[in-house]
């Protein structure tokens, strides 16, 4: 049985974002794409725990356009055994994505367990993991920073408010969304990259999975944040007094 890891290709955070002329989205022509940072933790955990979990394969899976195969290649180079690419050029919301990916997991499954990232840094939704778990009818825990296998159960740490942590026990057959702190993702090595080239990437379409790409929502009217007015630098003599006065009387925040 396999561990499935869901990954997404996202713009690198250093990339400058430009809006399309019709405001329907961002200009993707100059973007540098990377594996979503949280998904690196997810891939790493699957690789680290493969034996403890008792899985024979780690399968990375993504839904996205042709370019997103690069994210799969990164996961393969880290050590994943196979990859599944549900190809589409259309925008897909996370509800539909979770349906399609659940079908693919059923097709290549059964899954021993599933990992996703806590959130993708493009959409900031943090919705896909719990949605996928609901589609697969398996329990889940989100925002996991520690994952310990104990036979057929796992004990995980979930970070909640104010630095508090919940220690949660659930069946091994479940989904976890990976948070920072879970592990230290390995760097991709050159031999890893060479090996990845020979590993299988299964390509699937919505039709093959029998899923309709219906939209539950549409993202429109993209705009840049309002320009911030120039910073007011306070000179060192009396700067502290002046600052406190400004915070009280000008911006009225204290």
């Amino acid at each position, binding site marked *: 049985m396999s561990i499935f890891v869901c990954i997404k290709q996202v*713009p690198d*955070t250093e990339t400058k*974002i430009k809006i399309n002329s019709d405001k329907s989205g961002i200009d993707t022509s100059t973007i540098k794409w990377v594996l979503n*940072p949280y998904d690196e933790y997810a891939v790493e955990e699957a690789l680290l725990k493969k034996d403890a979990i008792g899985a024979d394969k780690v399968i990375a899976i993504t839904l996205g356009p042709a370019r997103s195969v690069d994210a799969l290649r990164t996961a393969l180079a880290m050590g994943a055994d196979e990859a599944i690419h549900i190809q589409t050029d259309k925008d897909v*919301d*996370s509800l539909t994505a*979770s349906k399609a990916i659940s079908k693919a997991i059923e097709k290549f499954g059964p899954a021993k367990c599933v990992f996703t990232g806590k959130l993708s*840094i*493009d*959409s*900031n*939704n*943090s*919705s896909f993991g*719990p949605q996928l*778990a*609901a*589609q697969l009818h398996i*329990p*889940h*825990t*989100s*925002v996991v*920073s520690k994952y310990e296998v104990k036979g057929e159960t796992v*004990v995980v740490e979930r970070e*909640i*408010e*104010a*630095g*508090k*942590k*919940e*220690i949660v*026990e659930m*069946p091994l057959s*479940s989904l976890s969304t990976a948070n*920072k*702190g879970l592990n230290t993702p390995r760097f991709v090595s050159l031999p890893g990259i060479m090996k990845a080239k020979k590993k299988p990437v299964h390509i699937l379409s919505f039709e093959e999975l029998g899923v309709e790409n219906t*939209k*539950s*929502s*549409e*993202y*429109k*009217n*993209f*705009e*840049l*944040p309002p320009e911030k007015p120039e*910073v*007011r*630098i306070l000179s060192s003599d009396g*700067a*502290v007094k002046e*600052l*406190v006065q400004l*915070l009280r009387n000008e*911006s009225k*925040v*204290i």
Partner: protein
Amino acid sequence: MAILVYVETTNGKIKGSSLELLTAAKKTNKPFSSISIGASASDLESLNAFGVKKHIEYKDEKLSKYNPEMFSQVLTEAIKDTGSEIILGSSSSLTKDLFPTVAAKISSGFVSDGTQLNWDGNRFSVKKPMYAGKCFCTVEFSKSLPQMILMRPNQMPVEPSEKVNTEVVTKNLSINDFKTKVIEIVKGASEKLDLTEANIIVSGGRGMQAAENFKLLEELAKTLGATVGASRAVTDAGWVSHSMQVGQTGKTVAPTLYIACGISGAVQHLAGMSDSKVIVAINKDPEAPIFKKATYGIVGDALEIVPLLNEEFKKILNS
């Protein structure tokens, strides 16, 4: 087009972020009710003051800790019972898990991290940041589906309406068998208000020089009733706990005042705090990128300035 507002309570009082949602629901002039799930009694006083005519309360010792299976069943049931098609919540560790789970169960549209709600007479559209706050977009929902919306705290006004008598419908848990169990809750380093809910944040970076200098920030935070945050350089160095990290791989915050001390302002840090209303930067390097996002800046040594600032705040806050 009934609306259901998910309200969260701390220390027996409905959170300010939930009151924002009740205010927004009331303004639509559509029927709305609220729901609370937990172990404590509902805050009837606030429900009355914010014009909630009907409140659904699931109250059980078993609900004192969050369990996705239990909570999602209960919320799904309440949505069906009330025939609600719009479900509003405020982003928290709990709702960020609960809402998408329920959205999948009832096949609804879902959006999180909203910063603005627009009512068109029938439905909401939601403005939200994308690409770590580098741009914004407006999310419109398909007309045939329910909509579940999570808003960031501190984005909308809190305005009580004319007082009403709230009918409280108490529901019992009908389900008992769950696969997930919270076995323990481990307390964090600080028992303060969480960063994501804090109104004021005092944040420190590598420029604070050493772990022990965070005491200066703690003291300033105490004066201001603020929560202390940090950059990743500092959490990675182990000076403070990971839960205090602000930024792309930490918390996204939007307080009314963010004071950045010895933080350079790397894009990944800005991604987590650039929506703050007022940003103060204290940095000895006048070229530090943080000054591009700041409202006010002081160029100088944070270790000297922070204690002075603390004294000055104490003076005006105690007078």
